[in-house]
């Protein structure tokens, strides 16, 4: 395909050509960044969590009298355990992805400044089964350890044992076994008795990148701190069991404020904001691509209309339909290429701006590649209609005046 005549013709129509290039450049820049941000939202929403989420429901209980809470918690757990359909029940201070996070910093050496927000899970007896933790090394807490666990006035666990996440074990003691090692915070020390697969933080966005999978587990006897019940049931009748459990608790604790959710809802609620953002971005992308495509169709149609006579002459002197079609497709390809090149520079600049001012990370190159390919394809599809119309101009057009 000879491109010199195309360039000559574009040179004559500088304004429309420039507008198409600009349009494609803008669309490409915004598309790359928007798709990248949608992907980040999706990845966030699917953050792995090594507990068996499917059968778990969480009931938050508020407004218990602090002095009587210990009895209430024991009584509630016993009553829930006796319910049909409930496999296991345990009390916990806060579930993963819960809103009222309890963070603390721990270090693997005494007097070292902790640098990560670790989520503190105070768990009641049986919580390892109720959550479905995956033990990788060591053991869970003994009944005796559960019975001794409580909070000191400085809000540290009085227990001397701790379960840690696999990520923390690797971070604190690279290349060594974590079992038997000590962690420190304030004036307290704990011995690691087990390592579990990574459980996600209580409020991962607050915990930050380093704290997202930094979780530590302490045994806790029934107390006011354990104001969430974890229920495990068959995923099939999870909703029904949760409803029943709410009624049971409502009768047992008439003064308390109860809030029950399946873990699926806990996760959905936590990521609701980023999911909304993602949908909005998707909507913007779709409308934007539609607008771009319509713009290309409009301008190319105008060109085709203007050049009917020239097309007729070319056809009369021997050009085939296919060659006319190829002419417009090549023209569009040249414009798209210019637009995409400009767009990639813009997309990169936008990404750098967002990185500097917002919590956005660097965009991997394949988003740029994907965006470029999408706009090339969009351009070719948009130009197809007007180009086919051009190809169907009969040679006799050459003999007519406008």
């Amino acid at each position, binding site marked *: 395909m000879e491109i010199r005549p195309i360039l000559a013709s574009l040179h004559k129509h500088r*304004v*429309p050509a420039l*507008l*198409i290039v*600009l*349009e494609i450049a*803008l*669309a490409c*820049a*915004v598309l790359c960044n*928007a798709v990248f941000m949608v992907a980040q939202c999706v990845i966030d929403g699917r953050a792995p969590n090594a507990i068996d989420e499917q059968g778990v429901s969480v009931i938050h209980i508020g*407004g218990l009298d602090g002095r009587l809470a210990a009895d209430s918690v024991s009584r509630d757990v016993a009553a829930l355990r006796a319910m049909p359909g409930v496999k296991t029940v345990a009390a916990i201070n806060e579930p993963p992805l819960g809103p009222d996070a309890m963070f603390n910093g721990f270090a693997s050496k005494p007097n070292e400044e902790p*640098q*990560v*927000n670790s989520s503190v899970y105070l768990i009641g007896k049986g919580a390892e089964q109720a959550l479905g933790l995956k033990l990788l090394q060591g053991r869970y807490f003994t009944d005796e350890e559960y019975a001794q666990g409580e909070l000191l*006035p*400085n*809000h540290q666990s009085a227990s001397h044992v701790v379960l840690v996440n696999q990520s923390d074990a690797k971070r604190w003691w690279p290349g060594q076994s974590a079992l038997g090692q000590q962690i420190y915070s*304030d004036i307290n020390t704990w011995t690691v008795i087990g390592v579990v697969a990574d459980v996600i933080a209580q409020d991962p*966005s*607050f*915990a*930050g*990148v*380093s*704290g997202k999978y930094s979780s530590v587990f302490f045994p806790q006897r029934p107390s006011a701190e354990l104001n969430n019940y974890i229920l495990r049931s068959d995923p099939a009748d999870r909703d029904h069991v949760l409803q029943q459990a709410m009624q049971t608790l409502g009768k047992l604790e008439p*003064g308390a404020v109860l809030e029950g959710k399946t873990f699926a809802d806990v996760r959905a609620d936590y990521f*609701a*904001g980023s999911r*909304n*953002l993602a949908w*909005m*971005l998707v909507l*913007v992308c779709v*409308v*934007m691509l539609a*607008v*771009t495509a*319509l*713009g290309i169709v*409009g*301008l190319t*149609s*105008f060109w085709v*209309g*203007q050049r009917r006579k020239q097309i007729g002459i070319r056809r009369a002197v021997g050009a085939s339909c296919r060659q006319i079609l190829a002419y417009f497709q090549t023209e569009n390809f040249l414009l798209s290429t210019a637009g995409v090149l400009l767009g990639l520079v813009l997309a990169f600049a*936008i990404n750098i701006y*967002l990185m500097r001012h*917002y*919590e956005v990370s660097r965009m991997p190159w394949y988003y740029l590649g994907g965006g470029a390919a999408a706009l090339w394809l969009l351009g070719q599809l948009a130009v197809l209609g007007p180009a086919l119309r051009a190809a169907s101009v009969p040679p006799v057009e050459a003999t007519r005046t*406008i």
Partner: protein
Amino acid sequence: MMGYSMELALRGLRRYPKTTALAVLTVAIGLAASMTTLALLHMLSADPLRGRSQHLHLAWVDTVLAKSQTYRSLDSDWATYDYKRLKTPDAEALLAAHKGTLQAAMADLDAQVGGDKGEPSNEQLLATSSDFIPMFGVALQDGRNWTAAEDAARTPVAVIDSELAQKLFGTPKAIGRVVQIKHHAFRVIGVSQPYAPQPHFYGLNAWTFSGNERESIFVPFGAAIDVGLASSSTDGCDDVTEKSKQYIAVDPMHCEWLAFWVQLDTPQEVTAYRSFLDHYAQQQPLGSFGKKPQSQLLSVQRWLTLQNAIPDNVRLNVLLAGSFLLLCMVNVAGLLAAKFMRRGAEVGIRRALGASRRAVMLHHLFEAGMVCLLGGVLAWPLTLLGLALLRMQDQGFTDLARLDVAMFAALFALALAVGVLVGLLPSWRVSMVQPGLQVKSA
């Protein structure tokens, strides 16, 4: 000539109705997206207390007898929660100094509040001092505010809002009744209208934008301390503080928990207050903790900026919608260019008959302007729809998404500006048509 250009423009609009409709629709979508996000940003960044907030300043002096602590994680990607509060003795000293027109110390606390009978309910309580109500413009419906003398005497009195009065006593006429706070009696001396400025700038640690949260009861902070109410958060405690009193219920004497706001009416007063604070800071024995004297006096706007009060994704959405509008504009410029160039022959004849370039350009600018104004009209219901969609999301601040008069005017100003910008290039191009050439081919 203006009238003639306008008439030509109107005719032009009707000539290729499909292209015109497409252009109008594109402008409308772009404008609606931009205005929806801008309206939310506008509401969120609005002055929380019109007519008052420019005189209000947050005063802070570092008096914590401990090494400075950083609350930053390694990633440093979350805000340092540094609310610039004071310990009780310092707040009392600044109140007693009385260097501003009005001044008040305040803290948001959770409290169980009960009436004569029935279950107590959880309410947001503002522990503050007597100047708060006049200074922040809380409207009293009935009764009176408490006095500086009652502050000093730590008298258990309370001002409650009409909705709490209704809830506790079944009537807004609650003067002289008694509310129970932590099983202590507080006499109601005033009933106010519900008070909820947005953002909640004087207590950002409690919340920033609230749907239905607000302080429903105001009491002297001394009386609040006496009944055992305490803040659950602090910006720092003296080293002597017991560890257990640094969390959950902090020690009011040794931990920072009160925000101190002062009303300063003139720049001279601001300067004077700043030097007063500097002087106060220099008297603090902080040297042994490795700290230099520190004090700050921040205006409301500066404070909200520092605290990053407007959520990031609101600004991000404005940027996104802005770039979308830009794309729509380029697209419409393209459509208009095509439309205008199609009548090249006609313009050639007009030029040959003596029309000036200016006249041709004006006609086409008018046409572009009208396309965008029509787009603006269509964008209005679309914007309202967008805002309604925003309000349906529950993110704490989205219920503020509304279109006020200023933003309504801005919509049309923007539409007109877009029209001129979009029209410039195509109109210039069509005005460059050579007279002779076009006449020949026609």
